[in-house]
């Protein structure tokens, strides 16, 4: 153990250290919480039509706020399956792979919306995506895809192979999340990142991810209700 680490051990109370030991994913929770704070603050103060760069930033913040909490079990698995000295690096590598997956998908969603909205009108596009999200939520194959989100893979312990394995696991997990949540996230984007829609969809996603037997009927009704309210 380095002198710096030993010094830090003397300063941080044992109770806090134990929380950090047991929950190395704490900083991921903080990042997601900060993203939600940004979203709520922006919603309270902004009443103008966003520019292209603002939309990109808003999309990135939305992905961090809504998707990182869904990966906490995977992030924790990465940390606890890594050598102690590299657990934070391993979590960061996992998140790079995971967020890269979402960056590609969100770019595709925004590009498609940008193309379709002028052609069909925003109301029709939003309505179509609302219906798609509800149908996707109750589709029979979705439960299997949700199980896939819990997939774990072996991680090499050290060197570039460890980094590579963590990034690859992030991409695999991201791909699983995308195939499960793409319709919900597309609906959120179609409703111009409405905070109300985001919050309800986030609650639905958390329920799907962490409840053993989530009710697709209840979650579909919640999505339908909040989208209709937001028209």
């Amino acid at each position, binding site marked *: 153990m380095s002198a710096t680490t030993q010094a830090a051990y003397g300063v941080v109370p044992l109770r806090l250290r134990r929380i950090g030991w047991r929950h190395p994913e704490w900083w991921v929770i903080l990042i997601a919480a900060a993203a939600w704070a940004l979203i709520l603050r922006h919603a309270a103060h902004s009443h103008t039509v966003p520019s292209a760069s603002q939309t990109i930033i808003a999309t990135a913040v939305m992905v961090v706020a809504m998707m990182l909490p869904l990966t906490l079990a995977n992030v924790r698995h990465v940390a606890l399956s*890594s*050598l102690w*000295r590299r657990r934070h690096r391993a979590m960061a590598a996992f998140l790079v792979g995971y967020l890269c997956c979402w960056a590609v998908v969100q770019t595709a969603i925004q590009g498609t919306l940008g193309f379709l909205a002028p052609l069909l009108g925003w109301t029709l596009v939003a309505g179509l995506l609302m219906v798609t999200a509800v149908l996707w939520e109750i589709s029979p194959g979705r439960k299997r895809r949700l199980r896939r989100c819990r997939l774990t893979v072996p991680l090499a312990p050290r060197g570039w192979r460890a980094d590579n394995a963590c990034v690859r696991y992030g991409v695999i997990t991201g791909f699983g999340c995308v195939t499960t949540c793409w319709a919900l996230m597309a609906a959120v984007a179609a409703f111009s990142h409405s905070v109300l829609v985001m919050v309800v969809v986030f609650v639905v996603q958390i329920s799907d991810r962490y409840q053993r037997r989530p009710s697709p009927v209840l979650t579909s009704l919640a999505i339908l209700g909040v989208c209709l309210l937001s028209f």
Partner: protein
Amino acid sequence: MGSLENLPHGDIHMEVGGIQPLGWMSSFTTAGRDPIFWLHHANIDRLWKVWLNQGSRVNPPETRWLDMSFTIGGDASAATLAVRDVLDTTQPPLNYHYTDESPSVLEPAIAAAAFAAGSPSEEEQLPEELVPEMVGASDEGVPLAATSTEVEIAVEAPSGPAFAAATESQRPRKVYLKVENVKGEDLAASSYLVHLGLPPGASAAEYEDRRVGKVSMFGVLEASQSDEEHSGSGLTFSFDITGIFERLQEAEEFDPEHLRVTFTPVHASEEQSGNVRAGRVSLFYA
């Protein structure tokens, strides 16, 4: 996976069902067709009850576990019961007592566990203040084949919670071996004996005191598939190897650069080579 799930539960499934061909008892989906399944599971339930009767042991309090429900039977006679409904067998809807709940029924299981782990503390829970820290893992996976296979782990000195919790002699309080992501579609044996620290070329049979435990293949085929009940991660097994670890250190035969883990097949197939692999083998200190 809890140790009871693997041994004796999974092991008996595979011993009865076999793999050549795959018997009813060897598969999740067909085990219930074999009458011995009901005898086996009634006995597992009884062993659990006897274990609970000893001292301050209790069932897990987690709501997610208590609320898990299962539908038994079909058509009009189908019954859906939650775990919390069947915790006490003497109450409705079960209404039955075990004829023998004496602690002596656990002796074979305790003896097997103690032998496997090289320590009678195998069944003890990790104390709250101890946090496991991974100190080494294999660079690659290892095939679980019809012949013996082995993999090496390079072990590092702990630098986190295991460092803080180490005894004055710098030894970890607890040592665990994890066999992770065991998956495949074709079995080559019904189970594998796991040994730690065998010299190169040594026969596992000559080193019974280094036997870590047994990895049963029951459930491996199902857990390898991605469906509504499984993520496709395969199965993971954990073993308390504190006793074996201490013996290796005392005998000065613990080589942290090349800690060898050996898998020896039990009831190996003569026809099937199999394609099951353990994705990684790792070592944890606490």
